[in-house]
């Protein structure tokens, strides 16, 4: 029971880790290369969720200064701003991976890793 309460208190983290595991599992077990790329994105996004959740303060407002010197409880802006960078990096990796997939398809006529291995072993 105590465990459950602990989990309930930290449910953002738990979901983030669950998503991470789902993403990683999909990425490593599926042989379709595009599926791998999508799974990689899910994995990355889950980490971002985790980060943003660490910065969240219960009841905190978004860290936008609208008027100076009023006492509003802000959430921690740092994880959010860091995750911006993270998202951009993830997108660029996705784009690069996809261009590789397209080129691989041009050579092998398939985007399935098992089939590619089969083709290579036949050579």
């Amino acid at each position: 029971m105590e465990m459950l309460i602990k989990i309930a208190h930290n449910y953002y983290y738990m979901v983030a880790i669950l998503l991470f595991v789902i993403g990683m599992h999909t990425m490593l077990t599926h042989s379709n290369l595009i599926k791998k790329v999508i799974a990689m994105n899910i994995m990355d996004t889950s980490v971002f969720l985790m980060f943003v959740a660490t910065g969240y303060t219960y009841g905190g407002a978004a860290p936008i200064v609208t008027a100076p010197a009023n006492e509003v409880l802000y959430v921690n802006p740092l994880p959010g701003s860091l995750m911006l960078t993270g998202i951009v990096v993830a997108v660029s990796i996705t784009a690069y991976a996809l261009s590789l997939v397209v080129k691989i398809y041009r050579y092998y006529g398939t985007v399935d890793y098992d089939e590619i291995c089969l083709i290579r072993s036949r050579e």
Partner: protein
Amino acid sequence: MEDQIVRITSRLVTPFIQVYGIYVILHGHLSPGGGFSGGAIFGASLVLVALSFNLEVGAKQISHTTASVLESGGALGFVVTGLVGVAVGANFLANRGAGFPLGEAGELFSAGAIFIITAFLGVKVASTIVTLFYNIIEGEEKSGDAH
């Protein structure tokens, strides 16, 4: 994609998306958004045109060469802005120390170097997205020839 509705809609929507992208870029220091998201929105509008029409029309908007030059230019601009700080004797990427005018908080032209850097970033991200898109799509003609 040969759909009339898609074409007309995208043609109508594109200028608005672009203006919104520029808005997001320029207000990066004031409200949510900034170089990354604004640049992505702007770049996405260009990709949208290319997707809904065809590559030639898309290429007229921004050619591959221009995109890659803009890309290098944006990044170089970032580095140069950072170096201004060193040149005037403050740290790399310094803002106030480098003598950038800070202006009034809440105004459009405030926050000194951040503004400039965001603008460069927007250019860089927008052009990068276009380049990436062309990179993926480019196989079309070549593989089309092959088949």
